[in-house]
């Protein structure tokens, strides 16, 4: 198990000399624990401490960077089994499989789909992150050709080379030198050769086994050969096995400090039926996969999978926020009601949902309260009369509307006087405390 900041602190010189760039040894210890600093930044740490820190401070699931440049993705670093304990650290990678039996045109088309897959949701950019090039033909030349097409048509996209043939691997991986690809396909029969190729080309080695015992033995073999950047596949292909193996791997790494399985996982979920594939992918996303390899990336499927990934990987301690602005719900007229609330995304979705179901068109002013809900924001001074007044004034709303009435959430009724003082042309109406009373409230005023 990784050492805590306090445990690390006990092993440091405690001189606060600042040579590491931090004000105190304590601060440096905390940075080390969060892997925002490295031990070599401290010139005075004792040999004994170095030993202890080296072994025990390593994170249970190896951190890896896959790809390079602005399309690189991080994997590993996970610390918990359930998202409510602490956030899942690195959102899983979605890859689409390109088989080398496809025509160049088809490969190019898939590459284009990957490049066009990016969507924006709640302020985050979501996309298909990677392309897996599979040696379905078993022909080294075809694999290399497919790899060349991908490199050309999807430059910079992190790539997984999928072959069990070390010579084919070597030729294909050359094309992505400097881009930190995954070389997948190392197994019991070809480990030495594949490890050598991975080492020489500085690629991440992807190991596939039949079961977790074999997988553990294989990662040890790779490590002995000096290859430690690994992603692992137990061979599971059915949803049941994916769930079981991903779970056992995560538990082994986190709860048993079992180093041979302390690596990011890769799941192949390709299916004939795209709908089924999407659901199996869903199991993978929720249950610990680091890379999920899909067979197809239709827009409707991507939308659901990106959203699921976003939901699972949201930090439970940090509220998701929507953009501060005036939202038109329905088709509001100049005399339609104006309501105000905070930008906690759940608040926004619930309130706008209730307004929609009331069928009374409204303008919903959403103010940046750092994602806090109404009451919490008020207590923290982030949903104050002054802030509300400033937002309404600067919004230019008064030009669009004929009735200057602002409906405020019932929980902050206490603010109405103060808001009216700061918005002299406006009348403040106190709305209901709970969103589900909005339809009745709005309809009664319509």
């Amino acid at each position, binding site marked *: 198990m990784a050492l805590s900041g306090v445990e690390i602190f006990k092993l440091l010189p405690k001189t606060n000399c600042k040579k590491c760039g931090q004000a105190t040894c304590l601060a440096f210890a905390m940075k080390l624990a969060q892997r925002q600093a490295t031990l070599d930044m401290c010139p005075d740490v004792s040999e004994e401490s170095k030993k202890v820190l080296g072994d025990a401070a390593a994170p249970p699931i190896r951190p890896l960077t896959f790809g390079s440049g602005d399309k690189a993705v991080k994997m590993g670093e996970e610390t918990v089994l*359930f998202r409510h304990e602490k956030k899942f650290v690195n959102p899983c990678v979605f890859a689409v499989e390109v088989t080398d039996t496809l025509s160049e045109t088809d490969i190019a088309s898939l590459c284009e789909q990957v490049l066009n897959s990016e969507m924006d949701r709640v302020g985050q950019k979501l996309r298909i992150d990677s392309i897996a090039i599979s040696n379905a033909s078993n022909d080294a030349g075809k694999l290399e050709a497919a790899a060349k097409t991908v490199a050309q048509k999807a430059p910079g996209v992190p790539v997984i080379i999928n072959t069990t043939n070390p010579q084919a691997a070597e030729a294909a991986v050359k094309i992505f030198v400097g881009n930190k690809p995954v070389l997948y396909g190392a197994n019991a029969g070809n480990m030495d050769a594949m490890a050598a190729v991975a080492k020489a080309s500085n690629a991440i080695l992807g190991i596939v086994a039949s079961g977790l015992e074999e*997988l553990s033995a294989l990662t040890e073999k790779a490590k002995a050969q000096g290859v430690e950047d690994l992603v692992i596949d137990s061979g599971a292909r059915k*949803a049941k096995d994916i769930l079981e193996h991903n779970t056992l791997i995560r538990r082994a790494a986190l709860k048993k400090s079992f180093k041979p399985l302390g690596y990011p996982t890769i799941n192949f979920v390709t299916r004939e039926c795209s709908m089924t594939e999407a659901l199996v992918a*869903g199991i993978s996303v929720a249950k610990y996969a680091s890379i999920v390899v899909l067979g197809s990336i*239709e827009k409707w499927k991507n*939308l659901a999978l990106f959203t699921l990934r976003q939901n699972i990987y949201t930090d439970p301690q940090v509220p998701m926020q929507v953009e501060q602005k005036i939202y038109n719900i329905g088709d509001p007229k100049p005399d339609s009601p104006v309501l105000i609330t905070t930008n906690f995304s759940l608040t926004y*979705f619930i309130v706008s949902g209730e307004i929609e179901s009331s069928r009374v068109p409204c303008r919903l002013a959403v103010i940046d309260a750092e994602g806090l809900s109404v009451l919490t924001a008020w207590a923290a001074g982030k949903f104050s009369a002054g802030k509300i007044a400033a937002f309404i004034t600067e919004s230019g709303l008064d030009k669009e509307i004929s009735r200057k009435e602002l409906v405020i959430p019932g929980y902050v009724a206490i603010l109405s006087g103060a808001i009216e003082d700061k918005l002299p042309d406006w009348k403040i109406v106190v709305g209901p405390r709970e969103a589900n009373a909005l339809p009745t409230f709005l309809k009664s005023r319509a």
Partner: protein
Amino acid sequence: MAFAAPKESYNGSVYAVTIGTGDKAVTVGGENALQFHSFEGDMPNRPLIAYEIQDVPPEDWPENVKKVFDGVSDCPVKWAKFCQDELKARAIALRLVGTHPDREDRSAEDAAKTVKDVLAAIDVPLIILGSNHAEKDTAVLVAAAEAAKDRNCLIGKAQETNYKTIVAAAMANDHQLIALSELDINLAKQLNILITQMGFDKERIVTDPMSSALGYGLEYSYSVTERIRLAALTQNDQIMQQPILSDIGMYVWKVKETHASESDQPQWGPAEDRGILWEAESATAMLTAGAEMLIMRHPKAVAAVEALIDELA
């Protein structure tokens, strides 16, 4: 270093709850490990997906799911038979939305008649849901519970604000009960305590911690469900060992992603597949978190999820 599978074994288990009567009765729950973790425990009962029908035509459902039921959704009896006989539903959930005061405001008597008629037409278990208007539901569910006597239905939903009358009706008429709380594990426990303090059997309750559609709060429903399931297994908390219901279809088919046309949102792809997957993926997530019972709408979403359950069993 040799690998030893780190299996969990828990102190607690989930109650098995049976709804319906005769050979069409369905039991859910009963497991002693996390859902689908059959490698370390027993999963005696397959999760149940119930088809949602309503007492009034579904005018507010988006076209892509409404059209599936064209020709039957104008009559709850026809609709129920269609789900049972054509779609092979293992259970049906009758949502009495028409009784909501802001909708058709149908009376409790009207609701009772619908319940009677539907029960006469089907053998599979019936879940009877109010319109979620807390006050009106007390009258509606009391009448419905009486009309459904002897059929061991699952009645819901009892909430903190209205549970007393509904619990009494469920007890008097020998039904199972859905207890609804709003994404709050501590209030879910409190509601179970209040219900059982009235003398209602803790093993006749199904917990609804409130579901949310993918992208609209799913992570809250997901985590509260996981936490409830873990409390049942690891803390052996006897008041929190009920099976969990995910009433997911209703939330999914309200959101933009199941309504918007492809022409309005070209980067979202075709609406029909998109809507079906939105429901199926939301359901998949809730199953993974631990829900043993789902209420869904679109047959293709149901089929996809049933196929997944086959693969997970």
